[in-house]
């Protein structure tokens, strides 16, 4: 499967074997694969846009592989945190389809601005999953060059990155990299809670006024830590967009195909000069907010169970099985790969060195600062004063 461009290849296409027009469920929700693994031929967005995908078997299998790997690596990180190897972990459990679908819809030159939970998008960008673990282990504060990976650093301050994404997208326009088939686009990830932040709404204003080639991708996982969606809004979030002058659509965020289709369309519109749009990926945070959180304090088991039935991976597997696109050997092989990669990840986390304390004085300023030089020197002298002592 062509990384970042599964829609671009041919071979044995298997478009919507069990054709079914319009999701059985919510008319507001774009869905192309039901929780039972039934393919829906095409779905219509609120503005009449038709969404469909046309994947090869190979590509379907690739998406399944992504989903399984992303979940497994995430579980490994959670385990590492439980064992004290990470200080914290924000699991994406339940949100794999939204992330893999949107992540795979990105082209190589598109730029993504994640929150702290987009491990799945990161994976789809072809980035080593070890990369964000320094932050969560506490050995660095992010530590990568956004431009190298076309993936911004994780952003913890809620909503701040949506403005960065907007500015970046304005820069795409200023660079003349918009309006053609090989135009560029940016995507800003954020949560349902984030929609209440001033910054996110200012990003909506800016993106609209400057017609920025940007996709706002909101993973509505129903919670902002303990607060359910109704603490942030009383209408569906995708509707926020219209009042700012651009389209919004709600997609089944547990459906990797629909998530892909909707994001791909939005990105293509953006790169062709049609400006920003908002995607609300309707999903659910199956686990805790982070490893520090205890969700039993604020939500009931039955709610979680009801979402279990909408699992983003099971439905793809059901589809692959029913359509005989994949067999037991394939599933076993994917599981084995996931196991291998997670073991590999674990090994590398365990061997991540602690930073030298004195490095904390580095990289405060590109041009340095005499104050820090002085503090670094003092610190070194101070540390040396203990050398040889029992300290």
């Amino acid at each position: 499967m062509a990384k970042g461009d599964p829609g671009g290849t041919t071979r044995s296409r298997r478009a919507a074997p069990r054709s079914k027009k319009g999701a059985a469920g919510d008319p507001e929700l774009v869905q192309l694969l039901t929780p039972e693994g039934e393919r829906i031929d095409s779905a219509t967005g609120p503005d009449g846009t038709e969404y469909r995908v046309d994947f090869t078997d190979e590509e379907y299998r690739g998406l399944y592989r992504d989903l399984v790997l992303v979940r497994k690596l995430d579980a490994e990180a959670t385990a590492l945190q439980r064992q004290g190897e990470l200080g914290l972990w924000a699991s994406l459990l339940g949100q794999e389809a939204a992330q893999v679908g949107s992540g795979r819809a990105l082209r190589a030159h598109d730029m993504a601005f994640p929150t702290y939970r987009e491990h799945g998008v990161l994976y789809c960008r072809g980035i080593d999953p070890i990369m964000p673990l320094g932050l969560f282990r506490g050995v660095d504060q992010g530590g990568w060059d956004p431009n190298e990976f076309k993936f911004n650093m994780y952003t913890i301050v809620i909503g701040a990155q949506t403005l960065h994404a907007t500015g970046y997208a304005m820069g795409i326009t200023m660079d003349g990299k918009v309006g053609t088939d090989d135009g560029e686009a940016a995507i800003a990830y954020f949560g349902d809670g984030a929609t209440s932040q001033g910054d996110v709404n200012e990003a909506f204003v800016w993106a609209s006024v400057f017609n920025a080639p940007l996709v706002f991708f909101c993973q509505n996982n129903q919670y902002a830590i303990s607060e359910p969606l109704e603490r942030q809004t009383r209408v569906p979030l995708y509707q926020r967009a219209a009042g700012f002058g651009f389209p919004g659509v709600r997609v089944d965020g547990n459906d990797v195909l629909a998530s892909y289709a909707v994001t791909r369309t939005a990105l293509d519109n953006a790169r062709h000069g049609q400006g920003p749009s908002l995607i609300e990926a309707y999903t659910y945070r199956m686990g805790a907010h982070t490893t520090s959180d205890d969700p039993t304090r604020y939500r009931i088991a039955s709610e979680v169970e009801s979402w279990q039935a909408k699992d983003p991976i099971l439905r793809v597997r059901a589809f692959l099985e029913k359509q005989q696109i994949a067999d037991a050997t394939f599933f076993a092989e994917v599981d084995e790969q996931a196991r291998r990669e997670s073991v590999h990840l674990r090994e590398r986390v365990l061997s991540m060195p602690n930073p030298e304390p004195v490095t904390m004085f580095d990289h405060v300023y590109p041009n340095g600062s005499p104050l820090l030089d002085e503090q670094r020197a003092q610190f070194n002298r101070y540390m040396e004063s203990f050398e040889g002592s029992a300290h």
Partner: protein
Amino acid sequence: MATETLTLGKALNTGLRRALETDPKVIIMGEDVGKLGGVFRITDGLQKDFGDQRVIDTPLAESGIIGTAVGLAIRGYRPVCEIQFDGFVYPAYDQIVSQVAKMHYRSGGRLSIPMVIRIPFGGGIGAVEHHSESPEAYFAHTAGLKVVTCSNPQDAYVMIQQAIASDDPIVFLEPKRRYWEKGQVDLDAPLSDAYPLHSARVVRPGTDVTVLAYGPMVRTCLEAATAAAEDGRELEVIDLRSLSPLDLAAAYESVKRTGRAVVVHEAPSNIGLGAELAARITEECFYSLESPVLRVTGFDTPYPAARVEEEYLPDLDRVLDAVDRTFGW
């Protein structure tokens, strides 16, 4: 007898409960303060007992929290706002420094904004970025705000109630790494008899060096004093408690006796509280000082990765090192 052993966090929780009981106008607002009881459980159980009109889970936006609290205060309420972590107060900065701080002045004294802004602050808990900030200088430099912090459960219990009862807008900094530390709390002593909110306190008398600290660093300094005593040096430790206004009467008196002063805080050194303390003590005790006032602080870098925070934060050894230097000047 109502003296109980409580953690600092539980003492705050109990103090908040008392405030909600005492005054029906007191309300608590913030992210996750309701069902969850806050990420540090400081508001645990309060929504259950006082209802969601008094303990309000807000939308996720700090400017909104403080801005609506201003309106509620105009309406006669006494909002106690929780900011989830120190690093997340900045979206509310405009509301705090341009609105909350100035309302009383702008109105020519006709309107008060009796608001408490609770912020867990400081490092030492192994957190990721934005979760270990020490923003006290930003607020203490701001005219119109008062700023206090507590270092032990007893103070936590009393000071939070005093802050809520005060008509001044108060930034209440909670030393998050001390939330789990225990101490005796007298739950019965009437608030009216309590030690004044804006007064510093000598927490260990001594004769050789005056050590000034607040919040999380008080304990560090007390430990340093214990260690110093073993070496025959008596540190006088003062818990400032009020960061704005500062109460330096005890400090002046102390420094005039000891001739030496060390100021300790986690926040970066440059234009921090330590600078102000050094400047004022020097002005007041100019002829008594045997050495300049020395500062032991976080460094002037962004808060570093958790695995090096131990070296970033002032600890017992760094305090003692500074004490030594005041003698070697």
